[in-house]
């Protein structure tokens, strides 16, 4: 378990450093008008890119070679993570075409699943009730523009 912990830190550190490299590449591509040549729109991005590369590398280094921290590592379960992401993706895809209520019900259902609930029908029902209540409150109470049922069949 210990080695897994260390390499996880190293991976995240490398990821941050790579993000810094990506930012540096993107900074190099920003066109700077000569008027701003001295401290223009790329000055701070260069600093931030460098910061990401340095801190990421240090973190990766510590993860690989540093003394392991006393961890409280518990087992990680991945199916719940997948369920929640599934819910978020479904929410995004359904939000405009199917409307807020359906999208939110699906999201609620998936999250409840992810947290280990097995009473599918009950979760869907509660999710729908919450979504409808939120819709009515925000659409009519606070006048927020939310997509209704199937793009305008019911508003």
């Amino acid at each position: 378990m210990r080695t897994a912990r260390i390499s996880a830190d190293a991976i995240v550190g490398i990821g941050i450093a790579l993000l810094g490299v990506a930012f540096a590449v993107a900074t190099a591509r920003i066109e700077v008008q000569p008027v701003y040549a001295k401290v223009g729109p790329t000055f701070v991005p260069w600093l931030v890119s460098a910061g990401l590369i340095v801190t990421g590398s240090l973190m990766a280094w510590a993860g690989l070679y540093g003394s392991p921290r006393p961890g409280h590592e518990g087992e990680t379960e991945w199916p719940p993570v997948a369920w929640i992401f599934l819910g978020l993706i479904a929410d995004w895809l359904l939000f405009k075409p199917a409307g807020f209520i359906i999208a939110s019900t699906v999201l609620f259902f998936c999250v409840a699943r992810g947290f280990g609930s097995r009473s599918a029908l009950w979760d869907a029902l509660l999710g729908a009730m919450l979504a409808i209540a939120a819709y009515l409150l925000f659409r009519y109470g606070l006048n927020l523009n939310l997509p209704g049922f199937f793009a305008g069949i019911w508003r």
Partner: protein
Amino acid sequence: MTTLQHLLAGFSTALTLANLGWAFVGVTLGTLVGILPGIGPALTIALLLPVTSTLTPDAAFIMFAGLYYGAMYGSSTTSILLNTPGESGSIVTAVEGNLMARQGRGAAALATAAIGSFVAGTIGTILLTFLAPLIVKLAIRFGPAEYFSLIMLAFVTISGFLGESRVKGMASLFLGLAIGLVGIDSLTGQARFTLGFPNLLNGIDVVIVAVGLFAVGEALYIASRPDLREARIEAVKGSLLMTKEEWARSWLPWLRGTAIGFPFGALPAGGTEIPTFLSYVTEKRLARNPEEFGHGAIEGVAGPEAANNAAVAGVLVPLLTLGLPTSATAAILLAAFQQYGLQPGPLLFQQESTLIWGLIASLYIGNVMLLVLNLPLVGLWVRLLSIPQHLLYGAILVFSTLGVYSLNGSTFDLVLLAIFGALGFIMRRSELPVAPCVIGLILGPMAEAHFRRALSISQGDLSVFVTQPISAAILALALAALVVPTVISWTRSRRAIA
């Protein structure tokens, strides 16, 4: 006008029926989200931002301030009865208070926490009242160079010069700074890091990042760790009226906790977490029976709970007088000011003195409301703890998507939400603190603007930051905060080897 006159005027703003109502909504919501694990004041204010744009700034900030204070009260209840800190400032309480609850002294723990919070919150607010005008007087002379240096100091301290891992704090800070760079450069109109997405031209809204990191990231993390999913709720046992002995053992820790907590919040030294630990250690050292610590000592609840509330009041000092947030919630509050086109700082005290003093006055009122709301009604709040986790997080995520969508009415933001959720999950897993990221995101663009403005005034001369005495002093302080702990830990490890 003198400070007292300002404060009286503030009370006349805060005591209108409408504003009392908003204060009540704020403290109630704050208690609610403080009690519910997985949702805190930063997240709640972030989610409310799109909705409150229709309120007047007075009403909105009175509500937000109540919410900020309320969350601190509420989280102590969760810590004591559930052994899960509602907020990071209640980690110590989750240990000592929960031990008291297990011994059937839960009611006394709740009482000393609530009254201690009240005492500390009120003293903290008094200190805020009289300290803020003094700092404003000083800050009115600050120019871009001084503000830039102050932000640098805040960056060093919040990324944890006292924390466990400074590298991780720094990494989190730079992540936030990087996110803050996305969008159109405010000084030249140049688009940066938008990857060709027109939705990114206006930058990434702090609400999306905060909700992603806090709500989605937290949900993913808790769901992935079955050992964190189950928690035992202790029943409230004993009497809420503390005994004479409990009062005698509580009042000094309350005052000491306040004395430790307020400066930590007011000097940009990083949030509410550290002062609670310091208070705990202090109480343990001063206690007549130190062996009781670790088995449910009332001093170990009274001190830290006072410390975190005093720190919350302290955090408002740099936020209101300098526009400098030093906690995640303060960063979101700053975003809220910006939503109204207001920039906290010395000028705000002059131009919006009704708003500022109404806000400060409402803090006194909110504290009284919170004491009433939390002590006698604790039995009611406790029932919230029995909401099953899957329903709680389902609801949190539904409201998160709702809040994020209503920012721009665009589903593009829902994709960003998922991305920042993933980032939050990764950060939680590798123990990267989230607060520096949020603060970096909001302060980064301000730092850049001040930096470039200072340089355009000095015609590109970088020495402007060290030749002006105030700026130079602040930068020296920042450098010391950066270097000294490294040297200390280095010599310590050398000594350990030798």
